């Protein structure tokens, strides 16, 4: 969704257009779900968080300010809902994230264009990346995911997470450095014979 489309949708929501909310859900459901999933690494939790996020948005439609970035606002609500969800969980060890990480792409089909060797290599690398992301702190993961997958500018991430620009830059630098070091240390992944 372009910035102009986003602004128009925000205006319609603020004006009380009943169909605007459904359009918003359709436009952002994947993004909201994606961030929630990256924060929790659990599909059920991601579904729950995404629904909670949209319900909060629905209740707060009247507070939307024209000119304020709609997507930034939505990510802010999603991030807070995910953190609330994680805090409410009695036990959420980082090791558990690492352990469940390989399941993340279990339902995804292998790239049909790639040959079996390339597909295996790609799958192995994906698992290694999952393992590295699971080791990130919540803040590092949120910053990296919003920058890498959701294409938010550093300024927008700072606004969505409620932190300073310098902190976002620092989190982003640390997360990429961790990723680089962990992947270099791991070297080429052994072929364990599993296929996604």
């Amino acid at each position, binding site marked *: 969704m372009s910035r102009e489309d986003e602004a128009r949708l925000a205006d319609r929501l603020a004006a009380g257009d009943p169909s605007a909310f459904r359009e918003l*859900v359709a436009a952002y459901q*994947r993004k909201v779900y994606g961030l929630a999933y990256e924060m929790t690494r659990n599909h059920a939790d991601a579904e729950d968080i995404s*629904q909670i996020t949209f319900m909060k948005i*629905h209740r707060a439609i009247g507070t939307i300010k024209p000119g304020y970035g709609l997507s930034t606002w939505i990510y802010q609500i999603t991030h807070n809902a995910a953190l609330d969800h994680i805090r409410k969980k009695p036990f959420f060890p980082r090791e558990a994230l690492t352990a469940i990480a390989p399941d993340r792409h279990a339902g995804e089909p292998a790239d049909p264009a790639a040959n079996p060797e390339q597909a295996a290599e790609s799958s192995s*690398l994906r698992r290694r*990346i999952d393992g590295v992301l699971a080791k990130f702190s919540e803040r590092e993961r949120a910053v990296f995911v919003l920058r890498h997958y959701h294409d938010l500018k550093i300024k927008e991430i700072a606004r969505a997470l409620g932190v300073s620009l310098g902190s976002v830059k620092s989190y*982003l630098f640390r997360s990429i450095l961790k990723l680089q070091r962990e992947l270099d240390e791991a070297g080429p992944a052994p072929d364990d014979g599993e296929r996604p």
Partner: protein
Amino acid sequence: MNRCRRWQKRIPEAIYGELDAETRESMERHFAGCEGCAGLYHQMAEAVRKMEARPAPDRPPEYWDAYWDRLEARMAHDAAPARPRRAPAVRAWAYGTAGAILFLSLGIFIGRTFLRTRPELPPQAGTASTGTAPSGRPGLERGEGTAALAVRASRYLKRSRVLLLAVVNSDPKDEDPFKLNLPLQKKASEELLLEAAALRKGLGSSDPRLERLIADLEMILLQIANLTPDSDETDIEIIRAGVEGRDILFKINLNETVRPKQKAVAGLSPAWPGENRDPARIRTAAAA
């Protein structure tokens, strides 16, 4: 070195294309002359490139097709005005209260009917604040039970016995009689005299033998209460003669022997508090 750190911190911005053209050119100029920074940039950029192997998490299309319906259903459920859980919660609270009241009532009924507590003991003479009933009358004037009266008499006798043993066992030849802690003995005598008066009033003519014993004890207690610092061993000797002449200690023991049941009914321990620690009694027991 500081310049290197400054440019290194901006590598993520360069990788994701957030640097303006001018800053980008400055960075490239630095990297051209700094192998360390250039190497780090390429390594980090390569790590980000590898992220292509991991697409953003997604679900099958059918999941997204039904997403709106699930969300709408949940919103409708959460927006429902009446929550069915409220009513049972109130009812459970009411049941809990009713149950507690019933349980309490049952406990009071059982306690009053089957587990009658022992009669409340009348206050002892000498305990000034408790010697009078709330109505202002002495406890014995309120028509106390026979068992309670017997217990009170028993306590009175035991306490008197301890006092008499302490006095009559003192040896004037070996020790100063006033080492007996005369003020304490006098005070105890005065208290026992008050108690004797109350007991005699309560007993009436129901137990002539006990009444006589109390009257005999009153004489001795009066002598002890009237001892002065000028009194000598002759006064102690007179008291001892009175105790022996009237067989008071024997009568007290006899009274305790023939009334064990009354004590048991009252549920009291047979010993007067502190009696066993009385040195005079210990001495008497050892002598016996």
